[in-house]
């Protein structure tokens, strides 16, 4: 994708896992969102979610292609998406959780796109110029996603008694998985040290400020902090990702070497 930018190999051992965390996050969330297509509460919403899923798929494809080019071992976007096993996927657990009802899908999607919304601007000064370019393109998309999802957070949080109850339940279930997004580890430390991406502290600050305001308007309460920490970005996933991949990869893997 990088056009005139020269891919000059990986910038340190954290570079590839970091790109894959971002790409896998976008892909798996897209995969979840497109499950809604044809089954949403109203036709307009099917079309809205499909648009978001298409943007996320686009992000994933750019990031995989770039990761493959940097890695230099001939892996293309489909090699990453279809031929890696569960432990090699590095998306945060948040995006692999089942859709649940519409409330749960809204809360989960909002939590992740709000995270991306803090991430992309910070990545625009990355020492990886292609990543910076992808971030600049993605930021426009994510800005719209955030606006759309914020609207639903508030409408449903402050809608009827039933919608409020469903949203609060979804929040209680989903929110503990957001801690992982801001947990420091060897990858995030190296990324920040190499100037590839922001610190987790920076992202946490952005995200917390934005989401707190929305939750307050939506009359929802974030659950109290929990010691639970999900570990999808380490390749240690919930029960759910295995099924997502089984479905996503089955046809491709049944025909090794085939073109589609």
């Amino acid at each position: 994708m990088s056009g005139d930018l020269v891919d000059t190999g990986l910038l340190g051992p954290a570079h590839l896992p970091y790109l894959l965390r971002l790409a896998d996050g976008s892909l798996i969330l897209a995969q979840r969102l497109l499950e809604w297509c044809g089954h949403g509460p109203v036709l307009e919403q099917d079309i809205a979610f499909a648009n978001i899923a298409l943007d996320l798929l686009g992000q994933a494809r750019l990031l995989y292609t770039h990761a493959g080019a940097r890695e230099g071992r001939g892996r293309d976007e489909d090699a990453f998406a279809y031929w890696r096993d569960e432990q090699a996927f590095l998306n945060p657990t948040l995006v692999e959780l089942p859709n649940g009802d519409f409330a749960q899908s809204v809360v989960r999607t909002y939590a992740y796109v709000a995270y991306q919304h803090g991430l992309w601007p910070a990545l625009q000064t990355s020492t990886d110029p292609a990543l910076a370019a992808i971030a600049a393109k993605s930021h426009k998309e994510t800005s719209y996603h955030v606006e759309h999802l914020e609207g639903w957070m508030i409408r449903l949080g402050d809608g009827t008694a039933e919608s409020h109850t469903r949203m609060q339940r979804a929040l209680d279930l989903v929110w503990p998985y957001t801690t992982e997004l801001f947990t420091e580890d060897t990858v995030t430390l190296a990324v920040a040290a190499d100037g590839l991406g922001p610190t987790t502290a920076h992202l946490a600050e952005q995200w917390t400020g934005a989401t707190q305001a929305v939750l307050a308007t939506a009359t929802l309460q974030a659950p109290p902090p929990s010691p639970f920490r999900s570990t999808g970005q380490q390749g240690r996933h919930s029960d759910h990702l295995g099924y997502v991949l089984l479905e996503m990869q089955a046809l491709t893997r049944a025909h090794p070497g085939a073109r589609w």
Partner: protein
Amino acid sequence: MYTQSMDVPSDEVSASPALSDAEASATFDARCARGEFIEAKDWMPAPYRQTLVRQISQHAHSEIVGMLPEGNWLTRAPSLKRKTILLAKVQDEGGHGLYLYAAAETLGTSRDDLIAALHSGRAKYSSIFNYPTPTWADIGVIGWLVDGAAIMNQVPLCRCSYGPYARAMIRICREESFHQRQGFDLLHTLMQGTAAQQAMVQDAVNRWWWPVLMMFGPPDQDSPHAETSVKWGIKRISNDDLRQKFVDAIVEQAAVLGVTLPDPGLKWNAARGAHDFSPIDWTEFWQVVNGHGPCNRERLAARVAAYDEGAWVREAALAYADKQAARQAAAVTPATERRSPP
């Protein structure tokens, strides 16, 4: 996107065309005969309105139900490129359904009423979506043959006498043009692939060929609404003529693709300047139309479930809008801010 020739009768009771105003009716017929467009607020005979509501809503329902068999493969598309294309296509079907519901609504029936008619089984949708999509090649064949047949049906509707329908169809046909191509491209790629992929394509063509020919609707002599529909400019080309045109076009494309169309009776008739083909099994068609196809129950159940499970969402959004309106009314100050149009 998919219309089947829409003169398949619904179970909806249609009032007898007791024309109260013979003069208005004569003026109306003359307008249609001159090829004028009829617009939403114009006077129109009740049977014209009923026919259009039935036809446009059947068409809209077909788009929405049609999202299901293809949507079935969204999670499993074998490459990210194909997944992206398929999602954009299925999304288009949703958009087309939306345009068509809006066109039907101009005739005075709400979208919710139209959807209720679908869910209760009173309204029909294209029989083609009651067939399953067990393999990836089905996605290609739906694009190539099903969309191909639909486009052939739809292009004449761009000149339909009812303005809102004609305008929706123009938009749909323009967007539709990539659907058939992506289907052909998908199949072409499979036919260049492994023996298993090629077999997948032939199997899918075998299963879809006859149902696709049925999409053009019953033979002309059995089409109950055809005559008035032609007079009013709602229908422009007969079922059999469109079917023939389709067969002639597809035979060539099938040869390029390298697939065999499953009809031993299919051959060029030099005298007619067209292909002959074997008789169609209309028993199967009527069975599927009347609810006894392979997937009728599943398809309808999926639509009903989506609608029912979304009820609390639609209700909450309205409740929030009401609250906001009340809050704004309470907060109104004398110096109301005026905004100029963007």
